């Protein structure tokens, strides 16, 4: 890992790293400290210095049924989003990896949705899956009230999960295809010689060999579903957390609480819980993924 030949200087590497380290200190470590400080203090309503309140902010957060609602929504969103993206990505990667004529073109196309920002995709899907126009209107005119995300919370949750899955399926596809391409051809060819067909090979050889990639994607997509840059944008621009808080994911609630409710302490306490969750994910990732098998 370390290089044999290196330069000897102490000030030069420091000077080279300084700009980025300064940015990180200012925009990462300082806020990270502040979030902890705020979580345990409360600003008095009539001004003055913030006072230490111990775990009171956390108690308030945990006593709020809407907070638990956001936890359940986030869990549902992250699980459903993760499973559907990985499933779609896996099926498409297995299909494209067979390298039939034309698979190069679809490979190119499948990646495109990943370029779209979550909020822009959310806006478009508001139309595409709207109850009165777009694709679902015909279904709704045959079966009235079959689909209405503006009215039913469960439909709205499905809608945001669909937007998430649409955008991120291309991402899991890229990784799974790269993983499939590193499965040695000799293995699949030997299996084919023994008379196993493509589906048998996929189940018995390719998918087990993809285990590290699948696990990596599981952790990445769960993290993305909980705190991803897009998750907030998707929810904000597709359903705005509604109807009746049914799509209010944890990140959305934190931002709402902080910038609409101006409750920095409550928002920070919620951030701490979320940070704890991410740390668990990251820990799992490093504990298990870093020891993955390399088969090259």
């Amino acid at each position, binding site marked *: 890992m370390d290089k044999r030949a*290196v330069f000897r200087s102490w000030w030069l590497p420091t000077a080279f*790293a300084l700009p*980025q380290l300064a940015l990180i200190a200012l925009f990462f470590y300082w806020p990270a400290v502040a979030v902890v400080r705020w979580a345990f203090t409360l600003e008095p309503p009539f001004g003055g210095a913030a006072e230490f309140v111990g775990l009171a902010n956390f108690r308030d957060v945990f006593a709020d049924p809407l907070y638990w609602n956001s936890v359940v929504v986030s869990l549902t969103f992250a699980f459903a989003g993760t499973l559907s993206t990985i499933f779609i990505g896996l099926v498409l990667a297995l299909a494209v990896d067979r390298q039939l004529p034309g698979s190069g073109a679809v490979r*190119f196309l499948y990646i495109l949705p990943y370029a779209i920002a979550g909020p822009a995709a959310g806006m478009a899907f508001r139309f595409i899956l709207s109850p009165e*126009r777009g694709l679902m209107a015909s279904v709704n005119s045959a079966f009235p009230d079959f689909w209405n995300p503006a009215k039913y919370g469960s439909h709205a949750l499905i809608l945001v999960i669909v937007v998430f899955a649409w955008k991120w399926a291309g991402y899991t596809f890229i990784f799974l295809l790269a993983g499939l391409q590193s499965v040695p051809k000799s293995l699949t060819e030997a299996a084919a010689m023994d008379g196993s067909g493509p589906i048998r090979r996929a189940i018995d050889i390719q998918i087990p060999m993809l285990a590290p990639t699948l696990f990596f994607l599981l952790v990445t997509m769960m993290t993305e579903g909980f*705190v991803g840059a897009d998750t907030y944008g998707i929810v904000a621009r597709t359903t705005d957390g509604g109807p009746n808080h049914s799509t209010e994911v944890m990140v959305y609630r934190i931002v709402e609480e902080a910038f609409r409710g101006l409750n920095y302490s409550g928002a920070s306490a919620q951030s701490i819980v979320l940070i704890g969750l*991410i740390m668990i994910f990251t820990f799992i990732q490093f504990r298990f993924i870093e020891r993955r098998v390399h088969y090259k």
Partner: protein
Amino acid sequence: MIQRTPYADAFTYVLMALGFLLLIGPFAVIVAGASQTVQQVNAVPFNFLPQGQLLANMAEAWQRANLGTAMLNSFIMASLVTFGKVALSAMTAFSIVFFRTRFKHVFFWIVFITLMLPLEVRVVPTYAVAADLFEPIRLLIAWVTGITVSLNWNLLNSYAGLSLPLVATATGTFLYRQFYLTLPDELAEAARMDGSGPIRFFFDVVLPLSRTTMLALTTIMFVYGWNQYLWPLLMVTDPTYKTTMMSLVALLPSENGTPDWNVTLAGSLIIMLPPLLVVAVLQRWFVRGLVSSEK
């Protein structure tokens, strides 16, 4: 493959076609809707055939959401994020890989930990920092000297505020680090033997060699920067600094009257185009950057 599998091949094509419908179908609906008139776009059932109104709708959306300014701002923001990332991470990775100092592991971990907390979970305090940039310095001065100074500088409504906090992450550093570690030791040895110092080595050997890494990083960072939503939303109150993602709200059809989704869709199409072009045209680099920066 050494096998003939006509049924499995047919099934594979069915799956690929389904994938195509699922992933590319929405684009087709967006384009079709964006090219129709108000009556056509609201018709049931939906007509998938594009009509002739695309440019007119785009022009209307451009005007309504003031997309000229927004596109320019998004472009500036994405470019600044990209440039900052490409330049600063190359330098940090260089100092981590090519020197033997006690600090290098410290630097590595300082950068590494930033992977753990995305901007979204620390957005509240990061906003507070950007709104009052000198608070840490003020506190430090007050703590060291006991003097309260009034230094104030905020990054709200500025390009620096839009881009700098997004540069403060680890992605690029690891991409460069991985690449630097694959460079043969002989390069640095030869450079030293020829009397070149580290700075010259960095600019004349390392940077030209990392062209592919830079290109890969450029593509992913541009898309990342362009697609930012939450951060600009907090940073910008002045319409002259609005980015494209913020103008989505202005594109929403009004509640009264027949909603003109055709204009909305045309507007979102304009906003989607730049990152879409980057991913389509530079897909090789984009995929390489994505796969190697995450793993």
